């Protein structure tokens, strides 16, 4: 009898607990397609360690916010010293993108990035819907770089 009570207690504990962590809901992904027009004087190649389109689902406050990779959609490397280019990001997280543009890595350093041209249509905000494609257009003027961090 003593042993039965003991086993019942164990079974009660077994049944009384949940299973803890679960996969969070997934809002889906869409595609971002874009075209870029470059004007002005390109930086020297040694100052162009990398060049990418970056869509952010937040407005950055300083360069450390570039670490929030979870909240970004990032293109593969763009061509340099060209007059125009295009990009496509598959499986970009669905949602609102509040601050997006072309980013230049000017030194071989994790945080040495700066925006060189921003998406400005519709107040700079675009939306990615699940399983749909969002198309945008940007102009990068190397002679007139955007101010960073942006004013609120």
């Amino acid at each position: 009898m003593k042993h039965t009570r003991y086993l019942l207690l164990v079974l009660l504990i077994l049944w009384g607990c949940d299973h803890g962590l679960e996969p969070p809901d997934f809002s889906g992904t869409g595609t971002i397609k874009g075209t870029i027009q470059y004007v002005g004087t390109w930086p020297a190649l040694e100052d162009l360690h990398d060049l990418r389109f970056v869509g952010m689902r937040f407005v950055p406050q300083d360069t450390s916010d570039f670490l929030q990779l979870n909240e970004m959609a990032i293109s593969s490397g763009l061509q340099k010293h060209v007059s125009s280019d295009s990009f496509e990001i598959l499986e970009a997280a669905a949602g609102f993108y509040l601050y997006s543009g072309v980013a230049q890595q000017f030194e071989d350093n994790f945080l040495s990035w700066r925006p060189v041209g921003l998406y400005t249509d519709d107040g700079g905000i675009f939306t990615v819907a699940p399983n749909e494609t969002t198309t945008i257009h940007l102009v990068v003027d190397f002679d007139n770089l955007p101010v960073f961090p942006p004013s609120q």
Partner: protein
Amino acid sequence: MKYSLLIKASRAVLVGLFVLVPSVFGQSIEGFVRTTDGSPIPGANVIIIGTDIGKATDAEGYYVLQNVPAQVLIVGASSVGFFAVQKTIDARTESRVMLDFVLEEKVFESDEIVVSASRREQPALSVPVSVTILSAEQLSRRNVIGLDDALRTVSGIQVLDNQINIRGSSGFAYNTGSRVLLMLDGMPLLSADSDGIPLEALPSSEIQRMEVLKGPGSALYGSGAIGGVVNVITKDYPETPTLTVRSFAGSWEPVRHEVWRKGWQHGDEFRPFWGVGATYAKKESARLGWWANATFRRDSGYRELSGRDVFHAFAKGTFRPRPAYKIDALLGLMSRQQDDFIFWASARDVLSPGRVSFGETPAPGSSPNGAPDNYVNQISFLPAFTHFVSSRFYYEVKGRVFGSLVQPLDDITGKRKALSEGTVGFRYGMEGQAHWIPSPETQVIVGASRDAITTQSSFFVTSDGDDLGGQPEIATFTHVEHEITPDLQLVGGLRFDHYSIDSATSEQRLSPKLSLAYSWMPGQTIRAAWGHGFRVPSFAERFTDNRDYLPIVRNLELRPEKSQSIEVGIRGTAAFFGGLRWDASLFRNTYQGFIEPRLVIAEQAFQFINLEGASILGAEIQFGWESSDEQIRADVGYTFLNSEEDATGEDLPFRARHQLVASSDIRFWRGLRAGFDFRYASEPQRVESDFARFITDAEIMNDTKVLDLRVSGGHGPFEVAFIVNNALEYYYVERPALLGATRNYTFRLTYTK
């Protein structure tokens, strides 16, 4: 035949380690140990205090101690359930001394012994600090493979990945610096590179007991013991030669969520693990004993790129050239090849390692950032010499060498890279300790130690600008215990440490302690303790300068962190349908200059920095109970922690406010036994966010609720066990972006002859 040759060869090697000298035959002491009504007490221990000379009484209560030194001796007799008795005799005048003991019976008392609290053996009931003991039986029941498995069942301890956290002393610091000192047979065992705890470099099957000292231990053990001490005591030698073969096999069960399984091609499969090990132990004579152990285990892992192969071999020998001399040596080798799963891809893909990159396509066959591979070899050698000069004075000289060689594996070919691309580190040193008993009421321990680190790592850039560093350390310590009255014990201690940091700078620390234990009635002790602790930054914290996985820069200005603690507690035993024991404590630890990793914008990288002060206020209560027929045993412990950073008033990150551990075992008929371990830790009050800025979903933490079940039985030399770990199939985050161990099943077979 081969087996026999192997045994003989091993014996020859061990014997060859020692110099054989003629024995000296001394006097003999014999007599009876009886109760107050004259009944014999079989199995009572009779020992000569300050030596290892001792015997158990036979069925008639009779004992005989032979080859004892011809001098004035203190002889003690003890037995479970009786008050111990000591007598002083003069063995110089007679070759055969008759000595009887009468022991008074107790209602109930624990016979646990600890050594970590004061560098000498003493009853656990009377030590003036918080200590938890894990016995060999407790370890064996749980199929402990790594010692982290065992430590998770101790009240007030959380193991975050490979980092031990005693009463909130540590959060999660990427395995770069430990605030808990790991010791093997009383010798520090810290890796030379990161001061991390090499939990796998220990002979898990040859452990006699583990002692967990909670609270700063720096006054006795110096840097590293700021949060506590884990002392692993290895087994002695059986009276008859013993061969033990342990084998186990099991499997990780696929996780229940399909989303997680889909993220990894093996997510739907049962993932196997197995291991086999053998130990041979023999007491060759009263003067020589040894054991040797070799174990191999393979784990395919419940996550992608988290498999590992581990081989380790250990040997221990003890030789007594004369009754008053003792030589011990422990040699260990460990080889491990592993993938190291650092962080997940996301909370929707917890079985796959993540990647920190701006969308680069990885080379075929390469590992993501979240799972670097490496091949690790570790060696430990711990020799010790003890001389029992008299029953009131003995001294010990100990040496220690702990080496670690880490070779990264090529992502594509899997071949080992050159050591110059990894880490080579040695920590070595010596320690002398004298133990003096000037009077029966007073014990004095004084000692000194000299240690050094030599580390070369491609990850480090030292203050000289190279990748080779050293960190010589010198320390002296003293520890005094005095019985003011038979019921009141006062303990004081002071330790001085001097560290040279890579020849660039040096640090000195003075660590005092004071504690009091009062036995207000038989079996009940009240204690109070105060002490200082400190920790010198590890090599990894000070010198790591690397951008392979994360941008980390060195910090040559890093200072030692300091702590001060105060604790009051009560410990007791009582008869309650068997034996009941309890321990309750209140403690407050304050810290200055806590070392934590932070993102430093000016450096555009992570860096280890000294934070402002912090404090942890807590309470802990533990109960243990064993039925009078010894058929049922149960333990439960609860710990409450309230931490606070001075500057912000916020909780310290990654500390659980509530922790609960419970375990029980019950014997059925014919040796069949079943039991469980349950542990609960509440979700941390605060999750430090820098890590979560670039590791997806790293801010997600939850409660921990893990239940392990086991059933075992034996017949003849065989014992079988079936163990289900995480039986509730509860998913929890062990530390940021790392799913804790999922449900798994183990079948174990042990053969002992």
